Every structure is written in C-alpha cells, then in structure tokens.
C-alpha cells in the first residue's frame, strides 16, 4: 500500500475524560484507503520533549465525512501535547502504516475482539469492517475501572459488548480472561491491550484451538521499516512490528 506524509486538519479534539481524548482529523483531499489494525505516525510539535513521532492506531475512518479518528491516552509528554491540540490546528502524519487484521472470508461466524485500556483503539474500525462482512462481533472490553472503558456506544453498533473492570464499576468484576462470555464458542479472536492481557488471551486461544491475532505496541523510531528498532522475537527470528505487524497471528510469536 502506498504510504503518505500528510498534513491533516483537526476537526475536533474530544476530551473523553482526564486520561483519554479523541482526535477527529480531516484533509482537503480524500483520505487514502486504510485497513483495520494499521496505524499512523504523528509528529508532535511545540515541545522539546518529543523528538520522534508517536505511533497511534487507526481508531476509525469515516470515508463519507472524510474523517480519521485517533483515540489517545495521555501517558507522557507527547500524548499530553497532542491532547492540547485545537480545532483547525494541523497535524502531520505518516500513514497508513503496518499490516492489518485478517478479515475472515466466511461470514456468519462468531468472533471475539478483546481490548484492554487504550488497546481498544484499533478494534472499533475492525468491528466495523467485520460487521460489514457479515461476521458476528463480540467485543470484550476491559479496564481498571469504568473510566477506562471507552466508545462503548460506538462498539455496540457493530456487535455485542461485554465489559470487565478490576474494581467492578462496570460489567463483570475482574479481568477479561475471566469473563463468562468466554464459554461461548468463537471462531477467531482479535486482541489488543497490555501485554500480560494479550498473553493471557493468546493462551486461552491456544488452549481452545481458536485462531488468534494480537496487535503489538513496541516502541518505534520510524514506523515504516527503516530503523529496525521495533522488533519482536518470532518463529522467523526478529521481525519488525511496524511492517510485519503490528498484527501477528499468535502462531508466529514465541509467546
């Protein structure tokens, strides 16, 4: 897929809560085609503390409104700066980067999408694409407390939503891997979130012989295969998460 460096316009910066915000970006021209699971590299301006770009998943694309959504959690200087961005500001992005989630070519199957914290970001657009294909989506979204559960309404447009919180403030109390929905039979599992969660999900998938894709978030310097900084150890040796991933079938990883 052709990659672009684009200046996009910030249409809106929606503060979801203290930690999370949603950037709605648009451009003069039609946005290029992007796949679920792909990501962008955002240049963070106006700060001495974010030298490199920041990789952010594609949360959603609305081709009709020509909108690209980025769902971001504030964890450090770069994301904090991005949280201060205003409507009509310009953001420079490299996109679309990385591979993508596999869209099964059978429909009417049951798939599970497990997201933890801001790891839910790529699952929204994925859910949209899966539903479009006639796949039944079950979203299992977990967080420390209800403040970490985001976009529940949007998710519910594309399938059934289940939640867990560690403090019991929303859905079942505990971790995603203990949720009762896991007794359902699934044909495919997608997951993105903290590594321990993804490993637990991958383990569950292996034990139950379900195909499973995870999306990794290794730290990156370039995002397009030039620096070799973002590697993960796979059965084929070190591979770049930014080009061979971020999405990996768990059968490829040494987990």
């Amino acid at each position, binding site marked *: 897929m052709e990659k672009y460096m684009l200046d996009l316009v910030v249409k809106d910066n929606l503060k979801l809560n203290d930690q999370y915000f949603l950037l709605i970006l648009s451009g003069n021209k039609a946005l290029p085609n992007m796949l679920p699971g792909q990501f962008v590299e955002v240049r963070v301006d106006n700060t001495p503390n974010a030298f490199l770009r920041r990789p952010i998943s594609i949360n959603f694309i609305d081709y009709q409104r020509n909108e690209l959504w980025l769902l971001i959690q504030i964890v450090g200087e770069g994301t904090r700066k991005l949280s201060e961005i205003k409507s009509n500001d310009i953001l420079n992005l490299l996109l679309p980067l990385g591979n993508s989630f596999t869209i099964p070519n059978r429909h009417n199957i049951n798939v599970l999408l497990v997201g933890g914290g801001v790891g839910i970001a790529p699952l929204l657009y994925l859910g949209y694409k899966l539903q479009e294909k006639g796949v039944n989506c079950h979203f299992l979204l977990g967080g420390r407390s209800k403040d970490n559960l985001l976009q529940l309404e949007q998710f519910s447009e594309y399938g059934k939503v289940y939640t867990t919180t560690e403090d019991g403030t929303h859905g079942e109390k505990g971790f995603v891997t203990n949720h009762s929905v896991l007794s359902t039979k699934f044909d495919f599992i997608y997951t993105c979130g903290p590594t321990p969660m993804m490993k637990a999900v991958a383990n569950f998938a292996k034990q139950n012989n379900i195909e499973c894709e995870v999306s990794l978030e290794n730290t990156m310097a370039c*995002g397009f295969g030039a*620096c070799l*900084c973002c590697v993960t150890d796979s059965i084929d040796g070190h591979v770049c998460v930014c080009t061979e991933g971020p999405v990996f079938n768990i059968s490829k990883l040494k987990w």
Partner: protein
Amino acid sequence: MVDLRVKLGRMELKNPVMTASGTFGYGTEYKDYVDLSRIGGIVVKGTTLRDRQGNAYPRMAETPSGMLNAVGLQNKGVDYFIDSIYPTIKNYDTSIFVNVSGSTIDDYIITAEKLNDLDKIPGIELNISCPNVKEGGMAFGTSCLSASQVVKAVRSVYKNELMVKLSPNVTDISEIALAVEAEGADSISLINTLLGMAINAEKRKPLLSTVTGGLSGPAVKPIALRMVWQVAKAVKVPVVGMGGIMNATDAIEFILAGASAIQIGTANFIDPSVSEKVLVGIEEYLIRHKLSSVNELIGALEL
C-alpha cells in the same frame, strides 16, 4: 543553475546529500516519501558476512534532541544482500554504498571481496565504529593500530571507493583519520553514534536491552561538527560529515567545516522526505549567496 556535483575519492556524487547507514533501510522503505533519484547517495544498512539477528528488544530510547539505538547490525548477511536485495535496488538512479561491518578482519575482507564486482555499487563504507556489537565493530575504530589493520586488509582486496566510517568515541579522532588515510581509504565518513545510556528511573532499569547504545540526532551535532572540522583539517582525502543533520542549514555547516558530502540519519525517521528538502535548501543557499558550485562551500569557514 548551480553545480551540485562533488568529488568523492575515486568517484563523483551528483550532489552532496547522502542518507546514512541503518537509517534508510535499502532505500525502498522511503520510495513513497521521497524521489530516490534526487539523492546524491544512499548508504544501505550495515551488512555482515553472515546473517545477524541483532540485539534483543528494546533497542531504542528517545533522549533530549536525539535517540539511542542498539540494533546491533541486524541483517541477513552479504550473500542474501547480493542475491536478493541488490537486484531490486541496483537500478535506483543514485550511488549506492554498502556499509560493511565485521567481528574479525577476515569477516571484513571476505564481505568486501564479495561486493567488489557489483556493478552498481560504486563503493563501500567500512564501519569500524558500531557501538552495538560485542565483538569487533567500534573496537576496530578506537585505536590507530586496529583501524589501520582493518583498512589495510580491506584495501588489499577491494578496488572501488573505500569510505571508512569513524567512531566519535575516541580521544583524538584526527589521529585515527590519518591512520586510515595512510592505509588507502579513499574518503572518510564521520561520525557514527556516541556511546550513551538511558534509564527508566521509576522501574530502575536500563531502557535498552544492551544497557548502552548509540546516540544520534541533533544532540550530537556540535560534537560531530567539531570532529568533521578536525578531520578535514588533518587529512587530504574527502570527508563525509554527519551527525544530527535536520535541515539544509545543518548540512551547510558541515560542508563549511570541511565535508565534501553529508549524510542524513535520524532525521529521516521524523521526516522521511528530509533528504530532498535538504538538497533544495542547499541549492537555494548557493543561489542566495551567488555561488555557482557547492565546491566553493567545502571548508569555506572563515576563521
């Protein structure tokens, strides 16, 4: 029109803007962002005799105005380069250099020899300065004796442009430059990365799997510029300058300090089209300053 061509030892570059090894992949990674035919030269990824997996993740840490890397020369080996990569890149309309690294002098010799006959590879850049490998690498570049030995050995087998890339992690870089010049280097490039370290204070752990790594980016520019100036004063062969170049002004500073060409590394990660912008900026500078050739700028610093 201004003349951008520069002489580099046995060869000529169409312009002085090159991209630095390990930061520009094989060029291919950048073709959507930049017109590769505009670039004066591309130095591809560090290449070794045999396949190397490189160091464990994490390999990267951001630092003030820079970054540390500890890639450790991950590559599939010189044979794979020749068989599978060279055919796909050899028709790029730019000068392609292979950055050669090794753990032993024999590694260097054999690797260089294998590259001798690739038509579209006008030269190699001998990397005696990689700080991220346990054996060889930087060790060769930090003493005059070992630097001389490896350059002499490679010179005896390699017939094209032999550019030698120096390590900045030394007390006296001119001394090393003179030693490699004496053994037949056609040109000298510098600087490779400076050995650095980063720590996550909350976790009390190093940020790199290897603890230390190589520092690059604008943070190192003042050091790089000083070293290029020192080396250019010391040697007669052309010098290729790099370290923290982000824009045309930075590039011109290196040329003024004595570099015949420059390489852009880390900046490519932030702006993958930066090399073309630097080239345009140099052209504009020459026009603004009423100079007809970039050669008039080389070493033109007024003291």
